[in-house]
């Protein structure tokens, strides 16, 4: 036998040993252990769903109660009409009702939507509470804490690879793409809620929302242009928000959009590196660390909300806030009216030279 054939047989021999060793593997314990583990897992899943439904129902109940019985919430600005409050709460209320249904579905898409809504309302309500202490109604901290609780309770359950179906089935960078998708939908939820609150009268947030819809669609289709557009939209939204140029969007919401946009950009860095320089998948250490980072961030946001909401309503702060925002609201309204008038005048001049 020559040297090379000895080497080859050596590989084949070891492979045969490994196969034999693998074939000798069998389960030591019986079915009872599995049944017990299955019962426990099912009970835990049911508990997670029940907690989510109860928390969302509590949030919605708080909103309705504060809308119907005013004293349960903080005093509101005198210029705020009931239909304004209705407009502000419409999109979140519809989405949270949807979440109650979707959280029961085993599909990853439904689970992602629930997380996106919770993240959006957690950050918006927490930032609003922190930026204007003593001003926001009690619904805001209640919503922030409720959404944070849901995110912590749900964790990554329901986002296992086998639950993905349809078009969005990432084979590599699954966790990164999932989080990018969740944050993208969250930004979209925030913009939709803001635009609905302003009755779609400010063109810039509307255009951003449209761009985010297209980017989310591209990302959902797992297209590279979706990722680039998503990054571009994040950069635009973050730049506009930080420079306070997102007309019609309040400062806390603008900071929310900027924070989520920056988080999303940082998150997809490994994926972008992989696309540009070649690479295979997420680093295992990243997968180990990411859930903990997410939990710590959510917990910190919840803690911040508690700290700022602790001292309760402050009538003086509310009065200051209402008077300053009344002027700002008036200015913005006139500016928008003027823009629309100029635009229409231009169109009219073009058609009748």
């Amino acid at each position, binding site marked *: 036998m020559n040297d090379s054939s000895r080497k080859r047989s050596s590989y084949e021999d070891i492979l045969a040993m490994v196969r034999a060793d693998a074939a000798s593997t069998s*389960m030591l314990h019986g079915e009872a252990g599995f049944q017990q583990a*299955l019962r426990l897992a099912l009970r835990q899943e049911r508990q997670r769903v029940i907690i989510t439904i109860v928390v969302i129902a509590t949030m919605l109940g708080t909103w309705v109660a504060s809308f119907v019985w005013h004293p349960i919430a903080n005093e509101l600005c005198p210029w705020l009409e009931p239909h304004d409050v209705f407009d502000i709460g419409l999109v979140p209320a519809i989405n949270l009702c949807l979440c109650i249904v979707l959280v029961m579905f085993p599909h990853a898409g439904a689970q992602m939507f629930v997380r996106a809504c919770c993240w959006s309302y957690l950050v918006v309500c927490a930032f609003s509470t922190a930026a204007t202490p003593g001003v926001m109604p009690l619904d805001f901290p209640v919503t922030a804490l409720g959404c944070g609780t849901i995110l912590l309770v749900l964790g990554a359950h329901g986002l296992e690879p086998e639950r993905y179906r349809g078009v969005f089935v990432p084979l590599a960078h699954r966790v990164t793409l999932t989080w990018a998708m969740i944050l993208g939908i969250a930004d979209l939820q925030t913009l939709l809620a803001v635009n609905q609150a302003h009755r779609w009268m400010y063109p810039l947030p509307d255009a951003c929302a449209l761009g985010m819809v297209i980017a989310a669609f591209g990302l959902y289709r797992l297209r590279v242009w979706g990722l680039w557009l998503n990054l571009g939209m994040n950069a635009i939204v973050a730049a506009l928000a930080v420079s306070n140029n997102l007309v019609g969007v309040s400062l806390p919401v603008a900071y929310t959009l900027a924070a989520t946009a920056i988080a999303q950009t940082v998150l997809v860095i490994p994926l972008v590196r992989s696309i540009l320089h070649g690479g*295979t998948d997420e680093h295992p250490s990243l997968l180990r660390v990411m859930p903990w980072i997410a939990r710590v961030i959510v917990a910190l946001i919840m803690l911040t909300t508690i700290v700022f909401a602790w001292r309760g309503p402050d009538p003086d702060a509310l009065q200051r806030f209402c008077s300053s925002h009344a002027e700002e609201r008036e200015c913005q309204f006139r500016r928008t009216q003027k823009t629309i008038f100029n635009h229409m005048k231009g169109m009219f001049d073009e058609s009748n030279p």
Partner: protein
Amino acid sequence: MSKAPGHALALGTAVVASEEDKQERFCAMYRAERDSIARHLVALTGDRTSMEDLVNETFIRAFQSFETFEGRSSLRTWLHGIAVNVARNHRAKHHRRAAAALPEHSQETGATPEEELNRRQAIARFHRAIDELEPRLRDAFVLRVIEQHGLKEVAEMLTIPVSTAHAWATRAERLVRARIEGEGS
């Protein structure tokens, strides 16, 4: 490869009447498939100590996400695909193939202690070579070369095209062979 009895895998085609019925059918599937899944997981993770937990996790995840089973592959292949995901998750958490190294028990082959030691060392060397592969190549290698699944099955388990499964398994085998023969020379 041991094939599971047909009745145990009828779950995918049957209309599951109730939760109890579904649980009963899953237990039947568990009885039929657990050893096969256990072998699969040990080969993928190299960790015998966590084997029981990983097998249970595989079946629990299958039970919980059964509604997402689209019937594109056989239920058995789908189950093995979930085992691949469970193994990946386990590897990500534990960084390395824990006890990949040595098989715990000796087989009744009538080998001398020295031969048995050589056998264990050879298997450990093989597992170290597998450890050095990229995760995707490692999965393809284990499924195709060690477990000897068909290419189509491997492709379905890893949710990749058949040509990719073939390319990954071939490349992985070349690398492992080079490593083993390199050490042997």
